[in-house]
């Protein structure tokens, strides 16, 4: 039980865990940035007047949202080398998988944000002589993003937790590093509980911060 809980194991594992955490943070950051950029494109396609674009975007979002993330990770891990014609390494395949997967979720968030902007604002922009694109860029998107910030950040916390799933292809993120040490030193209890505590503290603090932000940002 807890009587022989060995803190020394955790102290010695700290450098390995830290390297793992850097991978986890890198994955989270790339997936957030890439996901928001591509998600915005998808959202604009979804709301576009051109049927082809809007149908494509709708199908894309439905496909990714009804597939488990692990299956998506497998798809890219095993299939991308075939498509590209050479191995690209587990880090790149996972980065691509996460970016494309998260884009589907960010697309829905951004679409809701854009649709929360009232139509007369678009008309006002057009009446002032701005083009459709200028109206979107300088009137709709800035306000939409302001409304969306809390939701985007909440999704980012979910994403941060989801990056632990790269364990299934053996990429050495924080959890996989903890798991490696746990099996190597036969210290399952210490390492898994440490991982749980670290994830909990980071996610709990961030979600408290988002909650405060939500109050500040409320229009």
């Amino acid at each position: 039980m807890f009587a022989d809980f060995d803190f020394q194991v955790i102290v010695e594992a700290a450098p390995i865990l830290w390297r793992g955490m850097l991978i986890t943070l890198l994955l989270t950051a790339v997936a957030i940035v890439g996901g928001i950029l591509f998600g915005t494109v998808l959202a604009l396609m979804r709301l576009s007047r051109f049927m082809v674009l809007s149908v494509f975007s709708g199908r894309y979002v439905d496909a990714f949202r009804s597939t488990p993330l692990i299956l998506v990770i497998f798809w890219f891990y095993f299939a991308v080398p075939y498509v590209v014609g050479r191995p690209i390494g587990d880090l790149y395949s996972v980065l691509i998988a996460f970016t494309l997967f998260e884009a589907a979720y960010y697309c829905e968030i951004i679409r809701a944000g854009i649709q929360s902007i009232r139509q007369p604002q678009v008309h006002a922009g057009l009446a002032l002589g701005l083009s459709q694109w200028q109206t979107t860029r300088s009137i709709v998107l800035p306000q939409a993003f302001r409304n969306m910030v809390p939701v985007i950040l909440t999704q980012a916390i979910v994403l941060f937790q989801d990056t632990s799933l790269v364990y299934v292809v053996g990429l050495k993120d924080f959890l996989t590093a903890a798991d490696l040490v746990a099996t190597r030193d036969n210290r399952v209890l210490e390492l898994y509980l440490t991982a749980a505590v670290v994830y909990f503290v980071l996610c709990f603090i961030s979600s408290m911060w988002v909650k405060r932000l939500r109050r500040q940002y409320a229009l």
Partner: protein
Amino acid sequence: MEMKYNWDWSVLLCRLPEDDPTGTSETTFGGTTATAGGAAQTFDTGADCAQPYLDWIVSGLGWTVVVACCAWVITISLGSVIGVSRTVNQPMVRAIATTYVEIFRNIPLLVQMFIWFFVVPELLPEDAGRWVKRELPLPEYWTAIVCLGMYHASRTAEQVRAGIESIPLGQTHAGLATGLTRVQVYRYILLPVSYRIIIPPLTSDFMGIFKNSSVALTIGVMELTAQSRQIAEYTFNIFEAFTVATVLYMMVTLIVVTVMRVVEAKVRIPGTIAMGGG
């Protein structure tokens, strides 16, 4: 980009040779049926056909559905209890419920899965721990069900709470004024109304459980994603294996969403915006 890949869907459809009497009987005939027999034979007993892959897929889908549905039963019952606890007047009860939600929501599912499977049996009293490790049949399946159920209960609790809080306080007061007890107010007014309001988020919670059941493959549950990866590794027909799994996940999603839309329309509360009109 040139893709060097040989599509071969027949790999997934083939069966073990001894399961297929036509395959063996065809080979004993010569003459006019030779071409048909020959074709059937390569189809049935080709090199890649060492395992009943179709059966693997079917069993994987079965386990995905079983694990998700059992976990959902835990989710909806525990989630309701905790959701209600967060709305009652006792600060102690509320604090416990809030703690539950924060803990289970802020630790990744995979970490929880590992803790349930590897750590919890060690923390149990000796006899119970030994029973879980040695005697409990299919321990990974039970673990996955409990873990998924309790993880998603924290999310469902938030939906239930939001549903209850969305009902105007006047209705509670009216209930109490007519002589109902607090429990009766929940039983006859707050819960029936809030469940009807929160059907859409509950549906997406269920889809979440269904998709997250794939995380159970990390502790050895052979559900759909695990089976499709196994087929991919056995046959190298990765595109076929993962396509089948993806399409099955999409089909189940489509069925659940369609059914829930009908349910939602059936139990819709008259007079709400969702009803349309007035």
